[in-house]
């Protein structure tokens, strides 16, 4: 599975990529929404795992852009911050519904989730 991981904290993005690769996925770490969209259009991933609150373009805007470009790409958001709930509610009011996970994600659970 081709997966892009977006998180402004490189240690999180990098370790997740490492974990995903260990399970045989083809993963790529980026630290901004903008680069995520750019790379998504190039590599056409099966899934994007993105943090919600990031400087610059946030995870929801990123996800919306990727959804429009790649309707079949699965998008999983993850967040440890309370502010994300309001942003998600806003997105849903506009018709966007996303899978959301709370940080910290247990890696085994994430891998399992990707299998479904």
């Amino acid at each position, binding site marked *: 599975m081709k997966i892009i991981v977006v998180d402004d904290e490189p240690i999180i993005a990098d370790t997740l990529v490492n974990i995903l690769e260990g399970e045989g996925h083809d993963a790529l770490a980026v630290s901004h929404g903008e680069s995520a969209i750019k790379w998504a259009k190039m590599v056409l991933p099966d899934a994007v795992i993105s943090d919600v609150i990031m400087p610059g373009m946030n995870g929801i805007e990123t996800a919306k852009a990727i959804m429009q470009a790649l309707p079949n790409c699965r998008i999983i958001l993850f967040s*440890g911050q309370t502010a994300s709930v*309001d942003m998600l509610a806003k997105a849903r009011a506009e018709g966007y519904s996303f*899978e959301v*996970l709370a940080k910290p*994600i247990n890696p085994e659970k994430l891998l399992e*989730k990707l299998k479904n």
Partner: protein
Amino acid sequence: MSSFSPTNATDTVAASSSEAEKAQRRLAAIIESSEDAIASKDLNGIITSWNKSAERLFGYTAEEIIGQPVTLIIPQELQDDEPRILGKIRAGERIEHFQTVRLHKNGQLIDVSLTVSPIRDDKGKIVGAAKIVRDITRQKKLEEAALRLAAIVESSDDAIASKDLNGIITSWNRSAEKLFGYKADEIIGKPVTTIIPPELHHDENTILSKIRRGEKIDHFETLRLHKNGERIEVSLTISPIKDDNGNVIGAAKIIRNITETNKIERALRTTEKLAAAGRMAATVAHEINNPLEAVTNLVYLAKRDLSKNDKVAGYLELASRELDRVAHITRQTLGFYRDTSSPVLLNVTETLDDLLLLYEKRFESRNIKLIKQYDKDTEITALAGEIRQAFSNLVTNAIDAMPDGGTLVLRVAKSHEWSGAQHRGVRVTILDTGSGIEAKHKKSIFQPFFTTKSDVGTGLGLWITRGIIEKHRGAIRMKSRAGQHDHGTAFSIFLPTEYAAGNPDTSSTEGKHSTLISAGGPA
């Protein structure tokens, strides 16, 4: 001179000072100076003598009234008394301390006590009656005042008791009986230390010495002992009792039970602490979650990439388990209010009323009108702390929604579950006339961290409230209307009568809209 003149005083005898005459004059002087009104009448009821006090009491001078019928000073409705009195006198009987009413010259009624005795002539024949009339108006008033006071004391909601200067209980009202479990006749005559816990006996000396100095003790909060050994938190107000000369002869105490008030205060403090803890947890949790995510991943990778070092593998396994614990705790602290106590029988209306007391000031200052519509017998078995928290959240939300005043309606009714009639319970409706919830927010209000109150909201209130209600296998519903007219919000809660723990994980997983942060954590 208007003076007492015995019937036979008209016989003018020369001023020879015979013994009999002397005695008679002495008697006349005594009668004239008596504090009691003294008069006499013949058997036809004609007044024959009238002393100074009688003049004072009835307003008639002796000249005016001697020779007049005694019925002159008897009120119309009591005229029948006179033939009866005369009848008794004729029979040689004496009438003692007969309490009745007589008439003053000015028409006013006087409460009197009469003593009427027959007067006999030398041969022992009854020729008239002597009456001693005592004005008991003042005494009656005092008696009435005392009775009124006694009734007030007896019916007071506060326990009222008195003791003498040796600390011996001298009176004990009904509320005292209720508060302490001792009947008045059990405790009167006993030392007051009977109701003071042993370790506080020394307090009594301090109190008594203050009282002896004539000082008052105001709202002294202390502990007292119920007959059953239980300790009661009380507020005492003790005042010295003084006699007519100003000497302290004892003490009157008003004892107010503040056990419940203190309980509520403590509960409120706890609630406030929890709310603060909740706010802090919300802030800290998301600061912690990012590093936690990183460490979790790192430990996972270290474990994965480790080859053939069982020792290190063991350490990492432990580290990973500990991390799961930390993650679990941060998630738990967000659902910060967990009542671990066991369910108790609680009266829903009382619980609400207790809470409302705490918000009284805010109702006043914001000009919020309170309307209560309570059914009777609204008892349920529930976790008291959590239910209080849930009600408190809804009431504070209502207050926050009405910064410029409004009406808060609290309805408590016996009810059945909406879905069917199987479960009996209580429905609580909390309705405000505040700004209402905008349609776009309606779906989000029960989500954690959702708040429109950017400065005061934690966004946890309704989420926690729903968690609590669901834990009690109840249900919560909201109706709201925003806009110009008829705006407001109503929350309706159903709580079943019997407590049966519901889903212990109250952290709101709404499967279909995967918008809630909840899944994915270690179980």
